[in-house]
């Protein structure tokens, strides 16, 4: 029976067999709880965020579980790794680029291994829906000799998470569960299993010659890792996650979300084929793959991003002298760029097997290209009433756009869009400060970096210490909207709220900056336009490193709070008699609620949050609060 319930209830529901419509991410959280999860740590990042958020919803009520939002992914993995070494089932959750941050800990954890199960969930983002790159993290599994499971849908996401804990405990090694955006953010039905009892009590058994990786120990541990990986290969040969579906002389090897598209494409093409669906994708089942290829006339490898499976499959075939034709990215049947979709797979398979493409894709596409030229672009933008917009407007006015503006990762990255157009350089979390240090050392102009509050705690601190230590005259504006907005409003050290729902003393960014020794530190309210511009000018003129904390709550959070409290939101309006159509509100500030009606500006009452920034910048005082 399918039931509807709150996610917190679903995660701890102890009626195996119950079915729910779950996001892939929610299913992973449930799988971890079924496996007896006791410790979880994450830094939120799309597309992984809802895993942590689901655990956050239960952590304060579910005695068995400790959950934390860590300051970054490296800390999250270190914390989870240590918990596991102290005999506690643990999970660290992050997006793909988060594993870059955690990679230092990740690599050596593989050397020392774990005790209780340790699962690392990493969510890749093919297509860069919400990321600065689309790296293929399966290569991390190869790099670390780490076992990896790759689910294709929500049910598998749950089941493989349970299996990942088993595998981790069997080998005493961390196990990677690698998912992608379309697995994370697709809802499908999940049948629950039973929740396992807790493991024996946590304990830390001293063993410095395993856990303290001085070179002597590292040299000892590397062969042990290789030996365990060898055992993992045998496990992969027999793993139920590497299974064969269908019949036919043509073989398809695939994994993850691509499997779904392959099945749909074969159906659409009316093509019979044997599909080897790989769920355990590191180490790969070499002998199974060799037998599979040898028994087929032709084998297609279908996967997103890098030809990870394909390279292995070709090597396995070569090793055994198998002559079967292997087709994939080498023949350009599938792209290495972006996410795959069913259509690309239909076309790829059709091309490889010389089949007729049943759908008139090309015709529809030609037709589309004729009409979409008429559709004005609509990139994501800062929300109506977003305080970041005010900060960037003020920064543009205060510096006359004569500086260089390194930016960072969060909602405020959207300042790249016109009319703000205030973003010049971005690499990764925290890079606004590091890049600003480099630029101030060689350029003689204002360098103003902007970084969010959560990002500041994630990886802004070491950059700021560098700026003070080397006395780089960087100007850093911390756009503090008192939440981790982009990923779904998670708390962070500046809010004081923890993953257990406890409220600890918040860490104030201005105090941190002062503590580090930044000689100029000011706090502004970006919704007070004139004062903010004055302070920014002052900071830019200051001879030395300066930090401004631009603090105003996220507009979405404020709206939600007001709605919950039943408070009325009073929008602003434009007096068309006074408005002269100068377009400062629409063309310089560019608030989503400022629209154009005939000859004058207007405010969209649905979108307006009543922040009042447009009223302050209107040169003719044509904008007033609605009575």
């Amino acid at each position: 029976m399918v039931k509807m319930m709150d996610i917190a209830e679903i995660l701890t529901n102890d009626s195996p067999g119950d079915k729910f419509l779950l996001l892939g991410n929610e299913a992973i959280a449930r799988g971890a709880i079924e496996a007896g999860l006791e410790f979880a740590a994450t830094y939120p990042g799309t597309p992984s965020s809802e895993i942590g958020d689901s655990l956050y919803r239960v952590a304060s009520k579910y005695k068995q579980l400790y959950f934390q939002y860590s300051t970054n992914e490296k800390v999250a993995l270190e914390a989870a790794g240590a918990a596991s070494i102290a005999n506690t089932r643990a999970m660290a959750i992050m997006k793909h680029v988060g594993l870059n941050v955690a990679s230092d800990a990740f690599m050596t954890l593989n050397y020392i291994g774990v005790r209780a199960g340790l699962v690392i969930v990493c969510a890749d983002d093919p297509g860069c829906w919400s990321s600065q790159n689309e790296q293929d993290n399966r290569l991390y599994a190869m790099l670390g000799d780490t076992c990896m499971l790759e689910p294709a849908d929500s049910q598998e996401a749950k089941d493989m998470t349970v299996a990942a804990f088993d595998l981790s405990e069997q080998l005493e090694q961390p196990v990677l569960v690698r998912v992608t955006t379309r697995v994370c953010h697709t809802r499908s039905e999940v049948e629950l299993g039973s929740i396992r009892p807790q493991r024996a009590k946590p304990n830390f058994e001293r063993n410095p010659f395993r856990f303290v990786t001085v070179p002597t120990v590292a040299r000892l541990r590397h062969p042990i890792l290789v030996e365990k990986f060898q055992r993992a290969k045998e496990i992969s040969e027999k793993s139920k996650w590497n299974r064969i579906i269908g019949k036919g002389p043509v073989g398809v090897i695939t994994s993850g979300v691509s499997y779904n598209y392959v099945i749909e494409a074969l159906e659409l093409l009316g093509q019979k084929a044997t599909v080897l669906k790989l769920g355990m994708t590191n180490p790969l089942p070499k002998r199974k793959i060799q037998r599979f290829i040898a028994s087929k006339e032709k084998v297609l490898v279908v996967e997103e991003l890098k030809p990870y499976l394909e390279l292995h499959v070709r090597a396995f075939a070569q090793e055994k002298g198998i002559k079967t034709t292997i087709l994939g990215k080498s023949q350009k049947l599938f792209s290495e760029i972006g996410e795959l979709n069913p259509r690309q797979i239909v076309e790829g398979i059709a091309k490889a097997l010389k089949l007729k493409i049943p759908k008139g894709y090309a015709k529809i596409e030609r037709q589309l290209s004729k009409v979409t030229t008429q559709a004005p672009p609509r990139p994501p933008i800062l929300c109506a009433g977003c305080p970041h917009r005010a900060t960037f407007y003020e920064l543009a006015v205060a510096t006359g756009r004569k500086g260089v503006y390194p930016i960072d990762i969060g909602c405020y990255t959207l300042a790249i869009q016109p009319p703000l157009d205030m973003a010049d350089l971005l690499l990764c979390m925290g890079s606004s400060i590091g890049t600003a240090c480099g630029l101030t050392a060689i350029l003689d102009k204002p360098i103003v970096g902007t970084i969010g509050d959560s990002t500041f705690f994630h990886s802004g601190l070491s950059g700021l210490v560098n700026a003070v230590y080397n006395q780089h005259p960087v100007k850093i504006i911390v756009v503090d909207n008192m939440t981790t907005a982009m990923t779904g409003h998670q708390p962070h050290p500046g809010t004081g709220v923890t993953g257990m729902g406890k409220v600890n003393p918040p860490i104030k960014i201005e105090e941190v900056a002062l503590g580090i020794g930044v000689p100029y530190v000011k706090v502004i309210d970006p919704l007070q336009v004139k004062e903010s511009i004055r302070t920014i000018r002052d900071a830019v003129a200051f001879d030395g490193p300066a930090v401004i904390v631009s603090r105003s709550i996220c507009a979405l959070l404020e709206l939600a709070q007001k709605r919950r409290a039943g408070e009325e939101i009073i929008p602003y309006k434009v007096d068309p008699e006074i408005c002269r159509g100068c377009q400062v509100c629409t063309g310089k500030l560019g608030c989503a609620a400022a629209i154009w009606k005939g000859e004058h500006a207007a405010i969209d009452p649905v979108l307006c949050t009543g922040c009042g920034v447009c009223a302050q910048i209107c040169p003719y005082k044509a904008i007033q609060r609605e009575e």
Partner: protein
Amino acid sequence: MKTSNIIMVGVGGTGVLTAARILATAAILERHNVRMGEIHGMAQRGGAVVCTVRIGEKVRGPIIATGTADLLLSIEPVEALRHVDRISPQGTIVVGMYHIIPTAVLLGRAQYPSDEEILKNLRKFGKVVTVDVADIAEKAGNILTMNTALIGAATGLGRIPIPQDSIISALREVLPSRYHEVNIKAFELGMKAVTGT
């Protein structure tokens, strides 16, 4: 049953995801196999948003390929146009004529086409039904019910393979109770708008 591919598009923040979730939940209540594709994070913020609801035994993945949607729903005409390649030549496009002007247009860097032009182009891809969702939502009592009104209209047209009662039950499951009444009203007015009863 035959696979039913429904694509809901629009602008982030107008309730597209919630509306799609109502449909997916309704399909689950009817014991169908479902995949619902969602958009989260960066792409959500005021940008063009696409949600998919796929219903049927053979459905595996969330993506609706070019030319395979049975139904395209959008309260916003330009967004319908942007994703119109998804509609199957036998499909129906239900479009609410609520214009949300992109920043590029406000800045004079792009033009918002006329309704006439948009509808003419939409018709090249499938059958088009227009609904005055803003009017319905206002009558229901909350402008944010436009997507619910759109689902009502599509239900009225017989284009959603789920009984009306299950959609209303799903709506109660998905939305906080304080929004039930206004949304049910929008749904019913949406149905009425196309059936005339």
